[in-house]
């Protein structure tokens, strides 16, 4: 599904070139749940952003469903964001001015889904996530775990093929974190491909495979043996 070949990401300053990522090769198959781990500054988030088409690699090739994603245009990127990729962030990134219902609805609006259908889809998801009672609340009225729950709902409402999570539990305490992680695991079991960046060894065990990144290089890449 995803194929990265010799991906470099660097910034040029006056006298030197600082590499964030250097020659990263990675292949992710459909249905995998990959946890990218590594110390701060290893380039985890940058890698995720490149995979999510939020950022561009400085060099290398990136194939998304065998399409050369390193060559596509802005407009196509928007199409990918609309239909193929969902995002979850550490800071939730909900829109403060919209309530729960509207936040979840947003991607459908941009996709041009009709109002009735939107209603049905959102209601379905609210029900599934058990947050029907909270649908009229605004992000500031929710706990962190609930906010992330809404963010997950928003990320998957368009039934994307790929879910990218940038430290989804980073701002949550452990109980809430576990709740989110088991939700992600469940989604994965239902067939969704997930790539997450995490610091948490324990939460990495929810996935099927761990990729360790150090100083922009893939150091280790191994499957999870006893998945929790």
């Amino acid at each position, binding site marked *: 599904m995803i194929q990265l070949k010799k991906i470099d990401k660097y910034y040029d300053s006056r006298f030197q070139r600082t590499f964030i990522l250097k020659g990263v090769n990675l292949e992710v198959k459909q249905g995998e749940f990959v946890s990218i781990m590594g110390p701060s500054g290893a380039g985890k988030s940058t890698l995720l*952003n490149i995979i*999510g088409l*939020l*950022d561009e690699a400085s060099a290398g090739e990136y194939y998304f469903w065998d399409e050369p994603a390193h060559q596509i245009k*802005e*407009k196509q990127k*928007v*199409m990918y*964001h*609309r*239909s193929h990729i969902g*995002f979850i*962030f550490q800071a939730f*990134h*909900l*829109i*403060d*001015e*919209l309530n729960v219902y*509207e936040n979840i*609805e*947003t*991607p459908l*609006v*941009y*996709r*041009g889904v009709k109002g009735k259908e939107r209603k049905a889809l959102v209601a379905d998801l609210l029900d599934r996530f058990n947050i029907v009672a909270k649908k009229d609340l605004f992000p500031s009225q929710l706990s962190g775990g609930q906010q992330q729950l809404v963010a997950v709902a*928003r990320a998957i409402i*368009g039934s994307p093929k790929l879910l990218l999570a940038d430290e989804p539990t980073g701002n949550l305490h452990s109980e809430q974190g576990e709740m989110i992680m088991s939700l992600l695991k469940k989604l994965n079991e239902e067939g969704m491909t997930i790539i997450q960046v995490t610091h948490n060894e324990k939460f990495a065990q929810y996935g099927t495979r761990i990729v360790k990144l150090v100083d922009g290089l893939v150091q280790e890449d191994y499957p999870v043996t006893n998945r929790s």
Partner: protein
Amino acid sequence: MIRFKLKLAIRNLLKNKLYSSLIIGGFAIGFTACILIALFYNAEHNVNKHFARHEQIYRLYDAKKNESGLDYKINAVIAEQYPDVEETCPLGFSYFPMTIKDAETKDYARVQYIISTNDRFFDVFSIPILSSLEDKPFSQLNSAVITESVAKQLFGDKNPLGRTIKQEFFTATVTAVMKDLPDNSSFKAELLLNSENKDFQMSQACNNGVCIYPVEHFLMLRNGIDPTQFAETLNASIGQYNTTVDSLALQNLSDIYLSTMNLGWTDEHTKGNSKMLLVFLAIAILIILLSSINYLSYTVSMQYAKMKEIGINKTNGAGKMHLLVDSFLEVSIGIVIALLVSVLLVSLFLPATEILFGKEINFNNIDFYQLLPVFAATIAGIILLNSLAPIYILSRFNITDFLSAGRKRTGKQLGKQAMLTFQLTVSIALIAAVMLIYKQLQYVKHYDLGFNEEHLLRVELPFLFENQKALKDEVGKLPFVTGSTLSNGYPGHINMSMGSGVEGDEFMVNCIYVSDDFLETFGLKLLDGRNFLSGDKDQACLMNEAAVKRYGWENLDGRKYNNGREGGYNVIGKVNNFNVESLHSTLTPVALMYNPDREFNTLSMRLLPGNIGEQINQIRKVWKSMLPTDPMEFTFYNDQFQAMYSKEEKLAKSITFFSLIAIVLTCMGILGQIFLISLNRTKEIGVRKVNGAKISEILVLLNKDFVVWVVVAFVIATPIAYYAMNKWLESFAYKTTLSWWIFALAGVLALGIALLTVSWQSWRAATRNPVEALRYE
């Protein structure tokens, strides 16, 4: 989808209620001012356009002499000899207030606008006759046509037709009543007199023994006739019929009001001021610029604040179009709200436009077909301009910037600084202008007129009133009257001027016929020679300094004023200069001629300070005993001179009003800037405070930039304001000085206003707990 976006836009506006309402309110105020000015401007430009066939109506004038008062006889010639002219009518004006009386009931009405004309008047100007005795409005030689409102005033509910009206100069029969002229006409009429009657001619001009009745001629050309060509035809052949004119030109009716040509005294009275209109237009444009700038910096800052939201929307699949539509909606909503508020404000302010512009704006006088496209284009322009901001931001940043650094701003925001400096420049220039206008007004108002105008009362005397002297004596007996004198003409209204009587050095001398006690009553000083003695009757005159200087006399021995009568007048003394006109014009030579037995039109009295109402009542009692049927019209000289500056006073008031709006808008701009700056520098402030910066140091840090901008604005504003003000002062003969302190004070005021505005916000930023500030990171 639109509903979804509208909801988002409105919530975004509500998020920062104070800031949004400040900006939208400011925009509404600015827009209100502009709408008012636009309405006024449009009304002024549509003067005379209500006449149904104004496009075909032209006024005849002499291009060589720059005069529109031409021989009355030309009218008949044109009507008969030139088939290109459909209709033509003469208009002789008198704008001197008069009292007309109903001959039977002795009821009276005061009318000011009298025109002598003929039957064609009503065809040319398409003015409906409400009722008339016969077919034609002027059916008799001494016919008069009065307007509806004069009829009501004079005759009440009685039928005015066939009644006789009297005035000192004429007696006429009302043969028709016409509708009132619309108020946005360049000429006014309350009473029309039949011009066929020689007695109804308003003025006479003689030159080398040939006398003509100068009147204005209005021609209605046939459809499709070119006015310039017609004027040529006219000049080529008019000589056969009339020799007084040879260089005629035509001026369209609708051009008269705002034309820069001054073709006669009626123009001075009734014409609009195109310069003033330009000033107002400039102010309107400045105000709309100021408020647009505020709005623009508001939208820009909103976009920055929304960066996170933009990022989220982008990851959720929003295309550029979506984001642009979002911003566009948000911008438009704010502007539409501002517009609605301003429409409300305009409807509230409309009755007060009289105070602002000296003329109430009437919707009937406004051509909305001209105005609406201008409004629509302005609003569209502002919305477009404001939509540029989001385009700029969207193109400049990358999606990860949006998500990670919601408040990162790079580089010095030169654009914003330039905009703020512009606002400050406008404010400083306007403050200076307002101060100078007031300084000049104070100067002319308190300028020594040369005579003591305080407690000096003037009463108009009716024509053919024989007991003038008795009235003067009776009034003089009242205990509070310290002096009284009769005169023909008075300071402020000269009705006679004669040539200098020196061959080879012709200049005009303003003449006032006076009776006894003139110098004493007016408080004029005799500088040389002696006052009038009874033997001087009709033989002697006094001259003012300006006259003596103009003649070049070193002493008065045996000097004569050789004009007005056989043998001239002996100049027996010299008095100090005094103003007989407003201070728009310089001191002119004045001669006071002594003849206590002639007829006068004015009785002037000096009163002791006291209860004015009671004093007037007593004078009126004396008046009634001698003139039971005539109303007493009185004026105080100081009021009369103050009234000469009413135009300037109105200008001062309205410019002050609009300047205040401009300054308030600038304050809002400054407030918006400091709001953003302190938000941007929250972290910096926090870090500095943690490292031991004092509140005062933070304040200096935040306020320093504004001081620099005020200084830059001051440097730009001063020469502009100086130039403009110098131009304005040129219209005064007596001008105050353009002191340096006006500009300095304007700069200091602007600085003070700016710092006060800034400090309100920067104090808040500086005193905030640094922990709070640093928590953002």
